[in-house]
């Protein structure tokens, strides 16, 4: 059995309560439980986190960089989704 079989996990750390988990890097491990322990040793040696998620890298589904323009195009011409699009009288407060 070779090390080549150790799967890759992506690691997400919550820095403190009230914040989202953020991607910090990856670890190899025999299973998810070991990945959590390896991630603790690798990414939180200085109290950088209060919670860790690991996700098998092979389970992540991502948008394709090849289609980045067409994929995100629909949002490009909808400036009316932004509050600054609207012209209102200057003397109206809390708007």
């Amino acid at each position, binding site marked *: 059995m070779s090390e080549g079989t150790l799967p890759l996990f992506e690691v997400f750390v919550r820095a403190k309560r009230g914040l989202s988990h953020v991607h910090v*890097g990856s670890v190899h491990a025999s*299973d998810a439980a070991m990945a959590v322990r390896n991630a603790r040793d690798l990414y939180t040696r200085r109290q950088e986190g209060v919670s860790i998620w690991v996700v098998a890298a092979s389970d992540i589904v*991502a948008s*394709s960089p090849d289609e980045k323009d067409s994929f995100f195009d629909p949002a490009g011409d909808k400036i009316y989704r932004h509050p600054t699009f609207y012209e209102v009288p200057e003397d109206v407060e809390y708007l």
Partner: protein
Amino acid sequence: MYGNDFAEPDDPGAGPLNAADGGAVEAAAAHVDTKAREGLASFDAIIAADQRIEPRDAMPEEYRQTLIRQIAQHAHSEIIGMQPEGNWITRAPSLRRKAILIAKVQDEAGHGLYLYSAAETLGITREELLDRLHTGKQKYSSIFNYPTLTWADCGAIGWLVDGAAIMNQVPLCRCSYGPYARAMIRTCKEESFHQRQGFELLWELMRGTPEQQAMAQDATNRWWWPALAMFGPRDTGEHAVTGGHTEQSMAWGIKRFSNDDLRQKFVDMTVPQAARLGVTLPDPDLLWNEERGHYDFGEIDWDEFWRVIKGDGACNAARIERRVSSHEQGAWVREAATAYAAKQRERADGAVGAGEGSAA
């Protein structure tokens, strides 16, 4: 601990990693389809805008290979870099020093792992990277082929070697390849502790007995020149070594300053620190140059530098032997963990099966 990208002029590893890679590059270049052309135009635009390239972006094959080589060499340096100081863990003079040293060596392992992860995003596996280190196909920093003869060497490594590494790594935090830059940000945050603990170690020795002071001076004498050589061959002015990667790496935003600029900054930073410590830097030509606004310093022994890189340092063979045997001796741990994971999976599958059975 260290990241630079240079190769000896006659090193086959300086070009494509093997002949097949070179052929593939040319073949690919000859058959670029429209899509690839668009992709590379977008690569150029991202570089021109000083933005970051991310793993799944289109990139020139040479950019990819340059990064793999540099990040791998950097990672290998961190991993081999555990040995010179690890050598002193059992002999650290106090519990405090032992705890510090263990934490520092563990950090070096961590830096190596951040970097291996970054390299893997470029499409190379961890096994291949380790294999290239173990078989000598890829290098690590020549500094780690010097021996740690006394306790003061642990101080000199922290102060000078990690000090030089910080100088080199801070600009890499703005490297054009996102995963490498992010790994460097984490590393630099931790590196500052390494440099300070080394300085403090020497500071204590310099306030100790004459023997302790002599030990600190001796370590400074032995590590000063190898630390200057860490920045790599001269790459500016009339003495620039040709065939280096500096120009291309700067155009790609991988490297931000020349080797010579970083070396000068390091000298300018370190001279006042040495004076404060009370040690003498072993260079009779070290002198403030009013006109340049920098310290002048003597010529590095480049013959020694290339000799050590090519394998003729005091510890080259021992470092690799130790690395390979550690890896082999750890095989049973990896095998046991994998077997345990397989068993847990089987049991979980079995339990699901049983549950379905009883429900029916």
